């Protein structure tokens, strides 16, 4: 049985995907540090220049990339990137940077009357929750995506939303954190814990009967009594005003399973990043979520793939020996040529190792379409740079 290699994997047809009018959401995901934000921005720019009305939601862009897209202000609202359209004048690019706390505040303000909203916003527990909880960023990214979708449908502002995902330890956090946070806020457990604070007189008796008193006292000790009181009044405040955090999380999660959504998994040719990508691909399959394919960033390109590393290394050694200690012009040329060949040998080596890792991914996931983007000497920080990445992405494998 022969294994499928990376070079035999289906090539990711980015332009077909971007042109698909049935597709409304593209989620870019992958391990931290693999170039998710840049890829998301490059896809968005390319789609806009092919006539789509695109909104790209970035999470934590590098300063210069943000500036390139005109994202100097962090106001949590999509802003049009000036001067971007297709040759025929159609298409537009909007970009925004997620402000997690602001998004949470807006959810509260949008669903509670002003007095109650104030009460929630001032709650110390809410303030910690909205600015520093593990999982809140993922939840708010999901929430923002939901909001943008609603607005897109109502106003026809955008026909394609491209989302970058938070720089989590694990790419899966993006899928799991919202449900976790939702079930926490909605959960029975928090209700039991906070029953006294919510003044549920009857509840207390029942809870005590069940022996829960011990647990609340333990938690009071761990968290401090004030924390539980704050949690309690927070839950009480949100409880009556808008239903089910979990429901909200579930709705957005369902959107991700929709045929109008597609995932692009991004990796770099490194062991950890590819392992993370593999986990994600397996998860998408298990959850029936549509996968467009894998983008492999920062691949070592070779200008003459026919000159093997061994040949180059051998040539380099021959010339180094010929040059010896001589200072003649000829020896200088020999040393220079030797150095250039050594450079080629090194690049061939790196390329071979990367290919091996990529082959391992494809052997395990032979059906996944792939595209590879060569390592560029410099980081991208303007629209031309993003355009170049877009062109490279479209070349596929």
């Amino acid at each position: 049985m022969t294994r499928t290699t990376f070079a035999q994997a289906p090539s990711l047809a980015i332009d077909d995907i971007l042109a698909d009018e049935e597709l409304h959401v593209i989620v870019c995901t992958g391990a931290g540090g693999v170039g998710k934000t840049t890829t998301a921005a490059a896809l968005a720019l390319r789609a806009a220049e092919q006539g789509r009305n695109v909104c790209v939601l970035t999470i934590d862009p590098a300063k210069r990339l943000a500036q390139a897209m005109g994202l100097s202000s962090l106001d949590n609202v999509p802003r049009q990137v000036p001067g971007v359209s297709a040759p025929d004048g159609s298409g537009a690019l909007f970009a925004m940077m997620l402000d997690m706390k602001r998004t949470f505040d807006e959810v509260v303000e949008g669903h509670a009357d002003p007095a109650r909203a104030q009460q929630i916003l001032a709650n110390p527990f809410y303030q910690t929750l909205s600015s520093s909880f593990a999982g809140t960023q993922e939840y708010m990214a999901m929430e923002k995506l939901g909001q943008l979708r609603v607005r897109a449908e109502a106003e026809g502002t955008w026909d394609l939303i491209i989302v970058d995902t938070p720089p989590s330890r694990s790419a899966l956090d993006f899928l799991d954190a919202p449900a976790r946070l939702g079930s926490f806020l909605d959960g029975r457990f928090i209700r039991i814990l906070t029953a006294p604070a919510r003044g549920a007189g009857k509840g207390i008796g029942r809870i005590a009967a069940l022996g829960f008193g011990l647990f609340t006292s333990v938690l009071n000790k761990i968290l401090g009594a004030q924390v539980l009181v704050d949690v309690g009044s927070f839950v009480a405040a949100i409880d009556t005003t808008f239903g089910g955090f979990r429901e909200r999380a579930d709705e957005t999660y369902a959107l991700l399973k929709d045929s109008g959504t597609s995932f692009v998994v991004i990796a770099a040719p490194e062991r950890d990043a590819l392992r993370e990508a593999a986990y994600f691909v397996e998860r998408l399959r298990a959850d029936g979520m549509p996968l467009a394919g894998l983008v492999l960033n920062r691949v070592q390109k070779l200008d003459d793939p026919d000159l093997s590393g061994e040949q180059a290394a051998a040539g380099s050694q021959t010339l180094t020996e010929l040059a010896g200690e001589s200072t003649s012009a000829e020896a200088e040329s020999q040393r220079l040529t030797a150095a250039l060949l050594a450079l080629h040998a090194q690049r061939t080596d790196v390329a071979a190792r990367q290919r091996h890792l990529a082959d391992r991914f494809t052997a395990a996931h032979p059906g996944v379409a792939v595209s590879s983007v060569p390592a560029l000497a410099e980081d991208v920080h303007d629209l031309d740079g993003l355009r170049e990445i877009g062109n490279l992405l479209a070349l596929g494998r």
Partner: protein
Amino acid sequence: MAPSPAPAQAGHAGVSAASRWAGVDLHVVSGKGGTGKTTVAAALALALARDGRRTLLLEVEGRQGIAQLFDTPPLPYEERKVAVAPGGGEVWALAVDPQEALLDYLESFYNMRRAGSALRRMGAIDFVTTIAPGLRDVLLTGKAVEVVRRKEKKGSDVYDAVVIDAPPTGRIAKFLNVNSEVSGLAKAGPIHKHADLVMGVIASPRTAVHLVTLLEEMPVQETIDGFAELAANGLPVGAVFVNMTRPPLLTDAQLLMAEHDTLPQEGIRAGLAQCGLAAHETEILPALLAEAADHAQRVALERREMQRIEVLGLPTFVLPLLPGGVDLGGLYELADLLNEADTP
């Protein structure tokens, strides 16, 4: 503050890691994703263990990266010896599981492990450790400080140094500072006291927070921002580890010519002929020139980034890219480099 290094002696290779950081008990290693912070943390633990010392490497993100690196089965929530260092030292490792750490915490503070198991059955522990306000981080940093302070019966430290493979740069200040927040939230009582105790170790010269970077724009920017944030939060700034570097293969003069596309093509052609590669020279020559130009551009960028790091004025360690990827042998190589470095 950065620990002051032992004076470098003329003719010596450098300062050992243990003497360089003589007063530091807790090393926190962070860095942007993909910069190799786990590798650096492991190499540092190995370097610090040399000559009969014992170090503990702490994993706090449940990735089992340490086990993979040392080629051992997944680490349980139990301290295990994972490597021996030159001169009889030992590296131990512990993957901290927040749930287990919470049970520890209940036991040591309230003598309530039994209540803890009951809580676990209800799913309460899971809930508390995954969601509650930074409690996870409270437990993880609490555990780190517990092992730092742990004594043998005779009164000497169980571990000469503890190294944490910490969360990434973007989260590090928040992670380390969580106990000062807790101390503010719980205004009195055992929690408040414990939080103050933990901060007393973390925000002191007994701790050093190191950041790992690559010579690329974004990781360097995050490093600069990260150190500023640490300093602003009163956290002890340690060293910069510049990881996965590759020495330039061309001389400065050659790099300059490569960059300006003025490499002497006749000479290279002659060189190719002399080593038997003249046959398809028409393809080879332009490819070599293009690769050289790309290399020159990258080296120039790396030098610019190195200058930005130097401006920080912190002890800086430059570690090479290991050609075969990181394995146990590679870790020893990196640890040796850390023990020989003559970085001021």
